[in-house]
């Protein structure tokens, strides 16, 4: 079923929408959840929450790209679950990503302004738009999907060292873009 048809089911409040979503994107959402939560049962719960959130969000929201829309919800819900745990229980992939992203922000300062979240996302969008597609895909797979370097390399058919190099250079460029923000005064 086409995404547009599934979305219409949501608008019609037809519960087949959830089944069609699960059939088409259940595996995709589960993969995102597992990358963060590292637990299959918890990931399945998270994906079920994704369906519920989607049901409650559409309508009125009409997603432009349904697959990415689901990815965002799943990722955010998984991060919320992680917030309920202490740092030690966070998945290794999350810790790796946080560690790497620390290079883009010079200090360990706290950020509390929620308005900055959207602003920062816009800055990252602009940053990504100036990157080559290969670099952009690597960045998003690493820090949105939280894929391992190995799986990104396999996904793209390139070497792990190249993935690491491109990520390193992107983090350097992002650090410059974020200079003066997010505690990065460097």
């Amino acid at each position, binding site marked *: 079923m086409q995404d547009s048809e599934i979305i219409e089911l949501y608008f019609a409040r037809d519960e087949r929408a959830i089944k069609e979503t699960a059939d088409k994107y259940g595996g995709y959402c589960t993969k995102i959840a597992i990358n963060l939560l590292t637990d299959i049962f918890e990931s399945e719960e998270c994906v079920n929450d994704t369906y519920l959130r989607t049901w409650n969000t559409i309508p009125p929201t009409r997603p432009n790209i349904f697959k990415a829309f689901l*990815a965002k919800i799943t990722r*955010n819900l998984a991060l919320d679950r992680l917030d309920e745990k202490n740092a030690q229980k966070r998945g290794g992939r999350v810790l790796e990503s946080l560690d790497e992203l620390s290079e883009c922000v010079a200090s360990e300062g706290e950020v509390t302004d929620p308005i900055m979240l959207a602003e920062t996302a816009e800055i990252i*969008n602009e940053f*990504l738009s100036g990157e080559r597609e*290969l670099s952009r895909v690597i960045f998003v797979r690493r820090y949105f999907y939280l894929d391992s370097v190995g799986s990104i390399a396999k996904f793209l058919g390139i070497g792990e060292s190249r993935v690491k190099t491109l990520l390193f250079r992107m983090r350097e460029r992002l650090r410059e873009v974020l200079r003066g923000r997010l505690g990065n005064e460097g």
Partner: protein
Amino acid sequence: MKANEFLLAAIGEIDEKYIAEAARPRSTGRLTARIGAIAASFLVTVSIVIGILGGAFDLFSGKMEPSGGGNSAGSSGSANLMPTISSDTGSAKLVGVDSMQGSTVRLVLYNTVEEMEVLLLESEDTPIEEGITPIIRCDGESCDSPPTEAGSYRLYIEFPEGKDYSAIYFSGIGTLSLTK
């Protein structure tokens, strides 16, 4: 929230087009041939948008040949192929899309690359199912036996039966000469 945690959260709010872009399957054949001493590496992306519109095969750059010869024998369908090219090096050119019949698209690529990857990407309307791998052939040979010399090659993408994907991406890195 610590700054790095905030940054991770902000990445979760990026434009959905980038999320979708990174989710598109990228695999299939990978041709590797090192020719000459061209040192620069580059990435070329050629996207070909294929629409089944009826009528005769369209030609790109005036190079496409009418179907009927070679592998196009037996063509019963009709298609309007509309290639578009984007390149960040300016050194790649799609010479033509020869024909499309059934689930096979025949392409001719003019390029100068060292390594070449043939990538199939889904269209928004027709997501590629996980596990689907198109068959890529070069001059009738599997991409497991890539060309090792500069020359003229024809690439064939065989789509799984019944599938109608509307975008194909070619990426080249390095120096393989593919000329018509």
